[in-house]
């Protein structure tokens, strides 16, 4: 079963990078669904856990390079939160590679494509989300 | 078949029943646990709704009862056994030693002032003052005979020396006697519920939180403060009092029944407090204002309008204390304005429930009668035999068979007396 990936892309850099990959017709696997957020600093640890809870195999968070953040320090906050999320995942027994944080600028379309390809391969080797098709009942 | 009657409990009901029976020419034995008759009514300051001084209207009856030739008053005594059945009961009575010869003691009280150890809590005054090892139960005690608290008495002998009548005998022995009666009337009254179990109200932790009965003693002229409302913490007169109803009553965790008298009692005390101290602010926290007796509602209306007593429909959640002023602070949900409020007052009076007196279970077993689920005496039939217990020949009246106020208790006492006479008459025929 193909791994399913949800990607949180920041509007100013990585979302534009993804667009550029499209404009340049760089092909990458269709496993990813992109959710646009204004800044990587907007991604809550609960979004990451919710994704795994409902059976998604991989979470990708992309933001501007350090120092490039449109909101100055949003990406630094994202780093702290991903660090915490990884600690929780480690205790939960979820493989750490299921969560990735990448800095992708608006002109790095190719990097975006290669990150997706790499991530899909990683997830294939790690296997499907052990939590299976989540049946969480309440929001 | 014997015409004599045993009356257990020397409160107002017991006294009234004895007087009525004696009036009919019947021989009455009146057994009272406490060294004096008078019961709880003696401890009250005033009675509602008239506001008469309680002891004033009780003392004459006590004297009449004590001095009646047909009535043998056995104080400081307990019923130990009953055998036989209606018309022919054999009753064992244990007369516990007073260590004072009732005959000789004139009640002059010299011995009381001679006793050097004044550090025991005075039961009558709800431990608001202390008494010596030898003491008179209360001023108007009947019989007006002192009693020695042998347990704490160190036998220094001062009282013996002082007593001209030579009435004090520290080695007096208990005496068991047996009497033969045709009918028994039980009127052993009630006790006041101990609210320390309700931790949230802080009784026992905060000095200025007292029970209704303690309040009675405080404001009673013969009480520990000579009638001055001096609150326990700093002996000053508070400028506001809050009476809290249903403490332990209408509460399934304590006593599910309604004690019937507290609402009126609080209103009475509030009015009297206003009379004594015109600037006093009085609050009554109630759930339902139960002024159902004759003249009661008007009494409550007067309290509201003339005496500015403020009635708050709420049962407080918690009482804390202001550390400096020691003023109790009441946290309550005013169910009319639907707001949680805080009220600081000088004194809090907990109108506690009135519960069956201690030892009622043992007495019931001795008498072979049953108790109801609230541990009052079970009555045979509320409509047709409201005064008969579950055993023929034994009658119950007053608070010990269910909550009621004084007029009802007296009415039932007279009823019980008549019923006893009727029983004897039927058996006799």
């Amino acid at each position, binding site marked *: 079963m193909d791994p399913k990936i949800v990607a949180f892309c920041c509007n100013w850099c990585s979302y534009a990078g993804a667009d550029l990959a499209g404009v340049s017709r760089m092909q990458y696997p269709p496993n990813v669904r992109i959710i646009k957020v204004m800044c990587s600093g907007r991604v*809550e*640890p*609960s*979004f990451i*856990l*919710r994704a*795994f*809870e409902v059976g998604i195999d991989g979470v990708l968070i992309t933001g501007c390079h350090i120092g490039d953040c449109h909101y100055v320090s949003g990406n630094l906050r994202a780093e702290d939160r991903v660090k*915490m999320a990884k*600690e*929780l995942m*480690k*205790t*939960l*027994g979820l493989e750490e590679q299921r969560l990735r944080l990448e800095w992708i600028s608006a002109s790095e379309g190719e990097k975006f494509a290669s990150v997706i390809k790499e991530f899909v391969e990683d997830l294939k080797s790690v296997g499907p989300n*052990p*939590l*299976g098709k*989540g049946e*969480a*009942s*309440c*929001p | 078949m014997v015409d004599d009657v045993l009356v257990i409990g020397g409160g107002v009901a017991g006294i009234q029943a004895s007087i009525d029976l004696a009036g009919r020419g019947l021989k009455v034995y009146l057994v009272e646990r406490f060294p004096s008759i008078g019961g709880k009514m003696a401890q009250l300051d005033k009675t509602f709704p008239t506001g008469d001084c309680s002891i004033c209207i009780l003392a004459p009856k006590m004297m009449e009862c004590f001095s009646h030739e047909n009535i043998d008053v056995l104080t400081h005594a307990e019923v130990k056994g009953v055998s036989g059945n209606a018309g022919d009961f054999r009753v064992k009575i244990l007369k516990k030693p007073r260590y004072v010869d009732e005959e000789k003691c004139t009640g002059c009280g010299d011995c009381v002032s001679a006793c050097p150890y004044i550090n025991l809590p005075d039961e009558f005054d709800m431990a608001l003052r202390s008494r010596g090892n030898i003491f008179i139960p209360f001023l108007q005690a009947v019989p007006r005979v002192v009693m020695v608290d042998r347990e704490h008495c160190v036998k220094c002998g001062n009282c013996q020396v002082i007593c001209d009548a030579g009435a004090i005998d520290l080695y007096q022995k208990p005496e068991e006697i047996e009497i033969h009666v045709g009918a028994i009337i039980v009127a052993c009254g009630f006790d006041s519920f101990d609210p320390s179990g309700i*931790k*949230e109200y802080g009784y026992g932790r905060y000095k200025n939180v007292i029970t209704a009965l303690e309040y009675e003693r405080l404001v009673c002229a013969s009480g520990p403060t000579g009638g001055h409302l001096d609150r326990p913490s700093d002996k000053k007169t508070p400028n506001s009092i809050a009476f809290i109803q*249903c403490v332990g009553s*209408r*509460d*399934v*965790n304590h006593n599910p029944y309604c004690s019937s008298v507290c609402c009126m009692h609080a209103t009475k005390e509030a009015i009297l407090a206003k009379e004594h101290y015109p600037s006093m602010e009085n609050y009554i926290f109630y*759930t*339902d204002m139960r002024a159902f007796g004759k003249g009661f509602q008007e009494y409550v209306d007067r309290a509201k309008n003339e005496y500015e007593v403020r009635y708050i*429909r*709420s*049962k*407080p*959640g*918690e009482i*804390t204390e202001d550390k400096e002023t020691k003023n109790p602070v009441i*946290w*309550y*949900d*005013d*169910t009319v304005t*639907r*707001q*949680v409020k805080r009220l600081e007052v000088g004194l809090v009076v907990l109108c506690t429930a009135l519960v069956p007196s201690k030892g009622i279970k043992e007495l019931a077993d001795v008498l072979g009668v049953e108790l109801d689920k609230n541990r009052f005496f079970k009555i045979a039939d509320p409509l047709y035999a409201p005064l008969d217990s579950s055993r023929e020949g034994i009658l119950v009246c007053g608070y010990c068979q269910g909550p009621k106020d004084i007029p009802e208790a007296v009415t039932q006492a007279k009823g019980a007396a008549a019923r006893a006479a009727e029983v004897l008459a039927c058996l006799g025929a």
Partner: protein
Amino acid sequence: MSLENIVNETKAYYCLECGKCTGSCPISRVNKGYSPRLTVEKALLGFDKELLADGGIWSCMTCNLCKDRCPSNVDYTKFIRYARAEALKTGYTGNCTHGGVLSSLMRIMGNPNLKQDRLGWVSDNLKISEKGDILYFTGCLPYFETLFKDIGVNSLDIARSTVKILNRIGIKPVVMPDERCCGHDLFWTGDLENFEKIAKLNVGLIRGTGAKKVIFSCPECYRTFKQDYSEYVDMDFELVHISEFLAEKIDEGKIDFGSLEEDVTYQDPCRLGRHLGVYDPPRKVISSIQGIGLIEMEHSRERSICCGTSTWTNCDRFSEQIQKERLKEAKAAADTLITACPKCQIHLSCAMKSKTPIDEVKIKDFSVLVASAMGLGDDP
């Protein structure tokens, strides 16, 4: 369960509207908009929709103050729990704190095919075993450590201290590698479906270790096992809180708690105190430490005030006011406050970070206090 059944189940119809519950409720005292009495009133008069949509039902701390004091014995706490389950079905929830990461974690732990790796904190000098009579249930401590170390609370110290104490008295407790959250918050926010899964999972795991007695350091786990699991799964092992276990040991004379020169005061956790009636064992253990001064707060034992927030929902300005009030009361008693529940420690420590002037109180967990008094040191 419709609101009508809830009223019957909890005997809410006995309510005399005397107001004693609202008068006692710490939330109502600060939050004018919340009143247990009016909530029951709405249920009685059939305002179902309005009640289920009212966010207030998620502010209740389920601390049992009102339930214990209600003259008509209305079980308001159970009433709230049922109301929340019903509200959840119609799509209403409370305001989840921390972005809802906690409830997400718990639901994940309800998933049978999860394989956790949660024993990272067990260093070499902590002796635990796979099988055995005595089992120590650690609940969510590893996750709390990750989430709350930034406010200076190391929840795993509780686990380490507890194991050290047990080791000291010769016990190598079983600590399960894949133990799940006890599901307390799922139960109390009405997610019974996931709660049932977690209950069965946990009991199955415990049975697998052959444990006869399960020791809890967290009162919420203790109460959940003791009172809420039985409806879903039966258990053939004893349940005991660490304070009770140590108190027994004092009677058997088996334990010496060393000494500690410090004045402390004790916060009764609602679940341990009012819910389970365990007041004395913790006090007994604490006061058996030589040199320690245990001073009671104004509100303690049955009158103890809750730490302000429950089930990670509606942690708002009112909870903060309650917490600050509680810290002031603790400060008046002593400089150190002993908590016996990881959540009390977290919530009160967080309140201390408030920007408004606050009473500085050292907050220390019960097991950590005992371990340090016994000189078991704080090396991990």
